């Protein structure tokens, strides 16, 4: 007698979010990218559909970032030219998307003007064909102004804009609605707060399929287990039909990995830890791969070699294990 293997039947699925817009769709991208849509736990091809592969967005900044040299050296020739930097990420390193962080706008930092930042966005848009993720400098008042301008200047491009938080989600939500962009809803690592923010945003009438969740993950060794369990709960919620938890998930992998001591301490300091760059790459790639298993859809990454490793892993995970 054949053994019947029990399979979970899921009532619902993660929502699909489409990023970018081609010329026909009113934008200038060469193609769009769709994330989400899973009707099973991550890579459980045997229990449901995983129609879209997780994607990697490589991080580009509008000013020269204070990154570890192990990172900088791979972008040395383009690090002060965001357009070329983005191009290199896509063409040379295989980024699926570009994640442009406008850190230079911060009033306590470079304090670049809104129009300068908008120019940077346009520069990047012009130099690559992939869809774009654009986030502000994390200073509420400046971001409000900045993201309004970015949204307007890039109207039609169907960007993913961030970050909306419980304290100030209203203006970003409003501009995403007016200029038809997608929004990153960032909450502290807590399932209820995540859900609350999604409710708040959707109550302003932004459709649910325009929202991507940033649950504020922790890096490897810095609370990744907690991140894992929260992501898992969100995915289970989505599969059980909780609409307010059913958006695709984005994770700031590169940022978290490259601020750990394990990734950045020099080889001289800890010879027994091995080569620093290799460590950093593995730290970033391992963080990413754990989060992939937990159900992240968009990985925001930095190191080209880590990206290569993770993309290879995604290929393997996308091979159907149906039975």
């Amino acid at each position: 007698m054949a053994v019947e293997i029990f399979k979970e039947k899921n009532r619902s699925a993660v929502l699909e979010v489409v990023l970018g817009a081609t010329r026909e769709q009113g934008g200038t991208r060469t193609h769009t990218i769709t994330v989400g849509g899973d009707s099973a736990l991550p890579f459980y091809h045997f229990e449901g559909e995983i129609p879209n592969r997780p994607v990697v967005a490589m991080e580009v900044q509008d000013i020269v970032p204070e990154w570890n040299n192990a990172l900088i050296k791979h972008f040395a020739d383009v690090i002060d030219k965001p357009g070329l930097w983005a191009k290199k990420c896509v063409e040379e390193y295989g980024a699926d998307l570009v994640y442009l962080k406008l850190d230079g706008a911060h009033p306590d930092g470079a304090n670049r003007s809104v129009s300068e930042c908008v120019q940077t966005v346009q520069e990047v848009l012009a130099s690559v064909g992939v869809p774009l993720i654009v986030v502000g400098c994390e200073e509420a008042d400046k971001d409000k102004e900045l993201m309004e301008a970015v949204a307007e200047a890039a109207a039609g491009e169907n960007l993913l804009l961030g970050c909306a938080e419980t304290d100030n989600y209203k203006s970003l939500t409003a501009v995403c609605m007016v200029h038809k962009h997608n929004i990153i809803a960032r909450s502290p690592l807590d399932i209820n707060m995540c859900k609350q923010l999604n409710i708040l945003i959707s109550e302003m009438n932004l459709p649910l399929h325009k929202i991507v969740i940033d649950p504020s993950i922790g890096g490897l060794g810095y609370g990744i287990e907690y991140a894992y369990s929260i992501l898992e709960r969100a995915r289970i919620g989505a599969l059980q039909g909780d609409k307010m938890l059913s958006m695709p998930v984005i994770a700031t992998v590169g940022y978290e990995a490259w601020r750990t001591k394990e990734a950045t301490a020099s080889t001289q300091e800890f010879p027994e830890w091995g080569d620093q760059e290799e460590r950093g790459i593995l730290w970033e790639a391992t963080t990413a791969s754990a989060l992939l298993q937990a159900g992240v859809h968009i990985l925001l990454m930095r190191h080209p070699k880590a990206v290569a490793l993770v993309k290879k892993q995604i290929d393997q995970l996308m091979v159907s294990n149906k039975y």
Partner: protein
Amino acid sequence: MEICSVTFLPDNVTVKTEPGITIAGAARLAGIELKMPCGGEGSCGKCVVRLTKKGTTEELLACQTIVYEDIFVEVPQNVRLGEHQILLAETEQNFQTKYDFEPLCQKVAVRLSPPSLYENASDWTRLSCELSKAVGGKEVVPSLPVLQKMAHLLRKSDWHVSALLVAQNGFYELIDLQPGMATETIYGLAIDIGTTTIVIYLVDLVSGKVLGKAGTYNKQAAYGDDIITRIIHCQSPKGLKQLHDAVIDSITELTEQLLATSQVVGSKVYVITVAGNTTMIHLFLGMDPKFIRLDPYIPTAAQFPIVKGKELGLETTPEACVYCLPAVGSYVGGDIVAGVLSTGMNWADNLTLFIDIGTNGEIVLGNKEWLISCACSAGPAFEGSGITCGMRAMQGAIERVEINPVNFEVRYQTIEGTPPAGICGSGLIDCIAKLHRVGLIDRAGRFCELDKPVERLRKTDEGKEFVLAWDWETALGKDITLTEGDIQNLIRAKGAIFAGIQCLLKTVQLDFSSLERIYIAGGFGNYLNIADAIEIGLLPDLPHHLYRFVGNTSVRGAYLSLISQTALNAATEIGKKLTYLELSAGNNFMEEFISALFLPHTNLELFPNVKSTTVVRGGNSD
């Protein structure tokens, strides 16, 4: 040393004092009680008085200002511990009292057969035998003074005497003996010691009738509004004594007032029952409550001995036996045991939820088979404390609010209809429900950005606030506002209560739908509007007829125990039987709490009847 005189206005009371005392201290000497929520730490900024000297007026904190010269101090009404709607009368719910009338103190008249050469038992054996028969076979023990006068008294009264018996643990003590059929009445007091208020019933123990009720503020308020501040105060030198004295003082004053109006003398009060939260009983008995506050939160005792009034300093009723109702744990005290006792939920078939809403929300769930309880710290928001323009439910407090959904104009109703002085707990709940309903705040309690500016919604250095009443309308000539911080405070308070309810239900694997009766107790409870409370997610979304306000069940439980020994025994039973769920230990309180920090709740499905009533605003629509 020089002596300064401090004159308080408008009372026009002058006290003479040595320099160096604070204005708050001088006020206490003058018999003017100030509200001091932070206990005089200088951190709450609520004890503002006006100081007039040499023609100039200054606003100062009474607890921080040292007197060093002759001054005039004006104490505004809102800083005083004023008249309060203290809940004296339990709303006349007809709880069937299953308990027999069997007061803790009884008078028994007996006739003894005189001794003879052939029947030569001692006087006491003779008497105790008869007395024991009269009280259902329980043992009776004599007190020494009675023994000392007994021989003569029995003979003088021709072996016909009235005995005064006071119930002890399992036996009676004979405390007085009078010749013949003594006719004077005997009395008892039932006392509820609340953190905020104290209520006393004067009871005729022959008929069981309540002769008078009186309530007042707990004078401990001078050392802080909440329990924690007071426990901390205990750690200062004399702190424990000050708090003990304050509660004894409050009780003595009230007792004297009650006795005077009923023309009863204190020495005729033989028994007193007391219900209060565990900390209050510790302070009342002079026990240091320090460890109630510290992990793992252990009280000195949960059952208390029977003591004499004079041992506690109750000079008005020195000989009375004082019984404190047992507690369950540090944060579920005798007041809650009294609540269970008086609502009868300990013998109910129906699954009942009992909620006492105050600074601490105490919740009991169960029926005749089992009872489980928890306490969650809601903070003082419901009592109007910790809220910018908050006040207790007293004259001038805004208790109802209407907000026009089109122009956002406000109409309000105050207690006793006087010009508004602030907003009380029920007003706050109503206000938040309405602000959300008209779309001025979102579900997280943050003000929305509207297309058009709203005059009443403004930005200050501390953030956004909503003006409920303009300065010219108010009693104090200052705008009454509600800030975003206030709203967050209230959301946390309601979130804590709701999370407590959820935790109890989940611990026994039940949900709302199984609740068949919900009792809302506590002074604040009676002014609560059920619809509002459900709308903001304080109470479960259940049909309103399941809810019942039961008022001050603490004093009622004390009263029942006073007139019925079976009730007092039942209270002891409840104290033992009630399971205490510690919310800070390994369960999902935090998770429940965070999901309750939303209007009405993160899981909107829990509030199906609230869902549809809100307007969505903010953002330009496309």
